[in-house]
C-alpha cells in the first residue's frame, strides 16, 4: 500500500503544481483586456485603469465579466478533475475483476472516485459553468451596469475554491494520514445510514465543502433574482426579456428553495455523525427522511442544471437557423411550468423504497406530466430549425446535438417515471445512462455551444473551426457509444456503483456485459479525446487566434438577430478604435456629460487625494 500511496501523493503534487503554474500564468493575463473595461480612468488619472494589474486584479475584481471568467476557469478545472476520476473508473470496468485500481485501494478507491465524480460534475462543474455564462451575459442582455450586488457576487465565487478543497479533501489527506482519512465513499446521494455511519472524516470534510458551495450558489441566486428584477434597463420588460435570462431567473428561484434545504439536511447529517443526534436514525427521523429531503432538493437540482442550458440553446439555435425562436412565449411558459412541477416529483427516485403506493402513483402522474413542457421545448427547437437557413457552425452543431440527446435522455426518463418499469430498472446502468444523456449530452453540450458562440466576444479572438467540429463529432459519437452501452447494460441487469462484476452466469450474461463495458470504455476515451482537442483549441486560439475585428462575427445582422450582447461588443470595438486617438482612453466626452454621477465621483475622488 505504501508504494501506491506515495504514487498518489506524487500525482496530487503534480496536480497542485499544475494549479499553481496556472495561477502564475494568470500574471500574464494582465494583457487580457476584457473589452470595455480596460480603458483608462477618468479625470486626470490617466495612469490608472479600473482594475489593478496581474494576479491582484483577479483576486479583487467585482466586475461581473471578470467573475464570469473566473467561474468558467473554475468549472473547467473541476471538469478535468471529474473527468480524470471517471476515466480511472472506466479503465477498471474493462474487466470484471478488480485489477487496474487494485494497487490504489481497490473497491474503496473506486467508491471514492465514484463519489467525487458525481459531486464534482454536479456541484463544482455544472452549477459554476452556468454561473459563468449568467454572470458574463445576463447584465449585458438586460442592459444593466453590473449585477445588483457586485461584491456579494465576488464573495460567492471565492467561497467555491475552498469548497472544492474540502470536498476533495479526503484524496489529499489519505496519503498524508496513512489512510486514516480517506475520500468519502457515499456516492453523490449520500444515503443514510451508510453516510451517517462511515467513520471516515473525509465524509465530514465533503459535507462541509458541499454546504459551503451551497451557500455560494444561494448567494448567487439571490443576486440574479435582484438583478433581473431591478437592474433591467428601461427598454427591457418582461415581454421582451431574453430567453436565457428567463431561465436564469427560474433557476435562481429553484436554487432559493432547493439549496438551503439541502444545506440544512447536510448540517443535520453532520450532527448525526458527530453529536449523536437522531435526525436520520431509525429511532428518529429514519433513513427514509434523508431520501425525502435529498430528493426534494435533488430533483429540482437536475432542473437547476438543465434549465439554463435549455435557455442557452433557445438563444443560440435561432441565430444559426436564420429565424426567430418559434413560440418564444411557450418556451417561457414551459420553463416556468417545469420550475413549479419540479418540486412535485421527487419521490420518483424512491419508487422502490416501499413508500405508500397511492403517493407513489401520484408522483408517477406528476413525473409523466413534466414530460409535456419538456416536449413543448423540443418541438419548439425543431420547428425553429424547420425550413430555416441552417448554418452548421460549431455552436449550432452542439445545439442540434443537444436536442437529439434530449430526445433520448428525456424519453428514457419517461420510462423510468413509470412505476412498473422503474421497479425493474432502478439502480441499474439504465438510470446512469438516462441521466448521462442529459448531463453530458445536454448540459455539457450547451456549455460548449455557448463557449464557441461567445468565444469571439469574450476573448476578441476566433477559435479554430475545424478543431471545434472535431470536438463536436468526437463528443457526440463518444456520448452515443458510451451511453447507449449504459442503457443496454441496464436492460441486462448490470447494477450501478460496482467496481467489479464477477457474478454467476445464472444472474446475468457475463460475456455480453463485459463486452458492453468495454464498448463504454472505448466511448469514454473518444469523449476524452474530444475534450483534449477542446482544451487545446481554447488555449491556442486564445493566445494566437485571429483577432476579431467585426462586431458581428456570426453575420447576425442579415437576419436581424444582432442581439444586445453583440451590439455591446460592437460598441466596444469601435470605442477601442477611438481610444487609440483619445488620450483619456476611450471615454467619449458626451458620455461623461450624460452621466452626472460619474463626473461627481471623479471629482470626489480627486478631492480625497
Amino acid at each position: 500500500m505504501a508504494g501506491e500511496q506515495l504514487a498518489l501523493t506524487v500525482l496530487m503534487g503534480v496536480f497542485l503544481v499544475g494549479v499553481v503554474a496556472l495561477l502564475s500564468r494568470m500574471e500574464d493575463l494582465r494583457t487580457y483586456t476584457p473589452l470595455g473595461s480596460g480603458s483608462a480612468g477618468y479625470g486626470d488619472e490617466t495612469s490608472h485603469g479600473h482594475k489593478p494589474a496581474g494576479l491582484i486584479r483577479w483576486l479583487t475584481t467585482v466586475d461581473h465579466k471578470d467573475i464570469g471568467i473566473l467561474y468558467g476557469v473554475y468549472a473547467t478545472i473541476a471538469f478535468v478533475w471529474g473527468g480524470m476520476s471517471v476515466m480511472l473508473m472506466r479503465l477498471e470496468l474493462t474487466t470484471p475483476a478488480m485489477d487496474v485500481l487494485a494497487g490504489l485501494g481497490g473497491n474503496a478507491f473506486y467508491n471514492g472516485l465514484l463519489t467525487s465524480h458525481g459531486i464534482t460534475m454536479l456541484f463544482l462543474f455544472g452549477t459554476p459553468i452556468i454561473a459563468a455564462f449568467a454572470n458574463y451575459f445576463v447584465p449585458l442582455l438586460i442592459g444593466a451596469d453590473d449585477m445588483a450586488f457586485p461584491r456579494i457576487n465576488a464573495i460567492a465565487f471565492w467561497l467555491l475554491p475552498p469548497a472544492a478543497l474540502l470536498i476533495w479533501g479526503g484524496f489529499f489527506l489519505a496519503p498524508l494520514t496513512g489512510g486514516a482519512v480517506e475520500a468519502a465513499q457515499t456516492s453523490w446521494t449520500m444515503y443514510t445510514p451508510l453516510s451517517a455511519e462511515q467513520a471516515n472524516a473525509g465524509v465530514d470534510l465533503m459535507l462541509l465543502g458541499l454546504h459551503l458551495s451551497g451557500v455560494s450558489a444561494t448567494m448567487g441566486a439571490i443576486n440574479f433574482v435582484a438583478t433581473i428584477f431591478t437592474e433591467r434597463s428601461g427598454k427591457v420588460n418582461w415581454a421582451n426579456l431574453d430567453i436565457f435570462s428567463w431561465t436564469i431567473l427560474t433557476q435562481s428561484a429553484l436554487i432559493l428553495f432547493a439549496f438551503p434545504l439541502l444545506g440544512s439536511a447536510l448540517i443535520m447529517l453532520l450532527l448525526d455523525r458527530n453529536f449523536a443526534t437522531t435526525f436520520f436514525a431509525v429511532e428518529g427521523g429514519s433513513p427514509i427522511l434523508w431520501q425525502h429531503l435529498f430528493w426534494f432538493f435533488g430533483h429540482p437540482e437536475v432542473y437547476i442544471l438543465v434549465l439554463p442550458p435549455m435557455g442557452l440553446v433557445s438563444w443560440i439555435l435561432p441565430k444559426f437557423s436564420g429565424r426567430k425562436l418559434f413560440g418564444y412565449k411557450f418556451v417561457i411558459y414551459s420553463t416556468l411550468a417545469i420550475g413549479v412541477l419540479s418540486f412535485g416529483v421527487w419521490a420518483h427516485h424512491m419508487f422502490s423504497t416501499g413508500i405508500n403506493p397511492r403517493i407513489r402513483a401520484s408522483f408517477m402522474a406528476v413525473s409523466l406530466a413534466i414530460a409535456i413542457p419538456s416536449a413543448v421545448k423540443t418541438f419548439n427547437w425543431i420547428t425553429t430549425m424547420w425550413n430555416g437557413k441552417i448554418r452548421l457552425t460549431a455552436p449550432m452543431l452542439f445545439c442540434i446535438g443537444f436536442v437529439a440527446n434530449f430526445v433520448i435522455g428525456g424519453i428514457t426518463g419517461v420510462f423510468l417515471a413509470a412505476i412498473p418499469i422503474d421497479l425493474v430498472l432502478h439502480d441499474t446502468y439504465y438510470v446512469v445512462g438516462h441521466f448521462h444523456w442529459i448531463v453530458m449530452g445536454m448540459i455539457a453540450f450547451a456549455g460548449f455551444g455557448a463557449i464557441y458562440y461567445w468565444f469571439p466576444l469574450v476573448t476578441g479572438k476566433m477559435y479554430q473551426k475545424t478543431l471545434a467540429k472535431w470536438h463536436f463529432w468526437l463528443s457526440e459519437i463518444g456520448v452515443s457509444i458510451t451511453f447507449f452501452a449504459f442503457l443496454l447494460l441496464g436492460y441486462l441487469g448490470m447494477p450501478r456503483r460496482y467496481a467489479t462484476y464477477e457474478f454467476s452466469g445464472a444472474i446475468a450474461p457475463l460475456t455480453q456485459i463485459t463486452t458492453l463495458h468495454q464498448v463504454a470504455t472505448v466511448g469514454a476515451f473518444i469523449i476524452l479525446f474530444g475534450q483534449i482537442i477542446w482544451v487545446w483549441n481554447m488555449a491556442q486560439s486564445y493566445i494566437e487566434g485571429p483577432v476579431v475585428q467585426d462586431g458581428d462575427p456570426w453575420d447576425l445582422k442579415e437576419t436581424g438577430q444582432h442581439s444586445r450582447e453583440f451590439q455591446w461588443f460592437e460598441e466596444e470595438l469601435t470605442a477601442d478604435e477611438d481610444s487609440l486617438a483619445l488620450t483619456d482612453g476611450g471615454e467619449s466626452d458626451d458620455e461623461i456629460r450624460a452621466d452626472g454621477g460619474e463626473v461627481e465621483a471623479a471629482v470626489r475622488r480627486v478631492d480625497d487625494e
Partner: protein
Amino acid sequence: MSHADEEEDGGHHLPAVEDWPRGFGEASWWPFVTAIGAAGIYLGAAMYVLSTGDSALVPLSYGLGTAVASIGLFLVGLYGWTYHAFIKAYWTSESTGVGLRMGMLAFLGSEIATFGAGFIYYFFVRADAWTDLPHLVESGNIFSSLVIVNTVILIISSVTLHYAHVALRDDDRRRFVGLLGLTLLLGVVFLGGQALEYYEFIAVEGFTIAEGAYGSAFYGLTGLHGLHVSLGAVLLGIVFVRSLFGQYTPEKHTSVTTVSMYWHFVDVVWIFLVVVLYVGAIISV
C-alpha cells in the same frame, strides 16, 4: 465604457469607486477577505472533526483557533465590504434600495427552506416516532413560563421596531433612535432568556441534544433560530449605530426596511416554533 446605453439616463456606474485598493473603480479586497474568513470557519469545523475520535489527527486547539481567527477575519471583511458598499457613500448614493429589498425578500424565501428541513424532521418524529420522550416533555415542563415571557419579549420587539420605523418616516428622530435601541435591547434580552433556558435544560435537567429524537429537534430548531436572532441583533446593532451617527432620513432608510423585514420574519418563525415544538409536544391528539 460606452456599454451604457447613451440614450438612457445613466452611464456605466462602477461598483467600487472608493474602495481598497484605492484608485480603481472595479476592484475591492473585501469580498476576498470575507470569503476567506467564511471558508476558514468551515476549515475550523473540519479540523475540529479531525481532532475528535480515537486517534486525533490535529489537536483540538487548532480547530478552535482557526475558527476563532476566521470569524474575526470574516467580521473584518464584512465590515469593509458593507462600509464601502453602503455606508461610506450613504449620502451621495442615489440608490432607491429596491434591489436590496428584493434581495432581502429572496433571502427570506431561502430561509423558509432552511428552517423547513428541521420542521419536516420534527413532523416526521411527531407523527411516527413519538416514543422515548424526555421527562420534560412527559411532564409538560418544556413549555415553561420562561418561554412565554421570552415569546412576549420577541413580539414586543417587533412592535417597537415597527413604530421606530414609523417614527423615522414621520421624521421624529428621537423617537426613532429610542425605539430602535429598545428593540435591540429586547433582542438581547431574548437571547439571554434563551441561554438561561439552555442552561436550565442542560445543566439542571440533563436534557441534551443527544437525548433522543425530540432532543435533536429541540436543539436543532431552537439553535438555528437562536443563530438567526443573534444575526438579527448584529444587524439591528449596525442600524442603531448608523442612526446614532445621523444616518437615515424619512426618504432614505433602505437598511431599516430590510432589517425590519428580517426581524419580523425571525419573529414569525419563533411563534410557529413555539406552537409546534413546545405546545405541540405536550398536547396529545
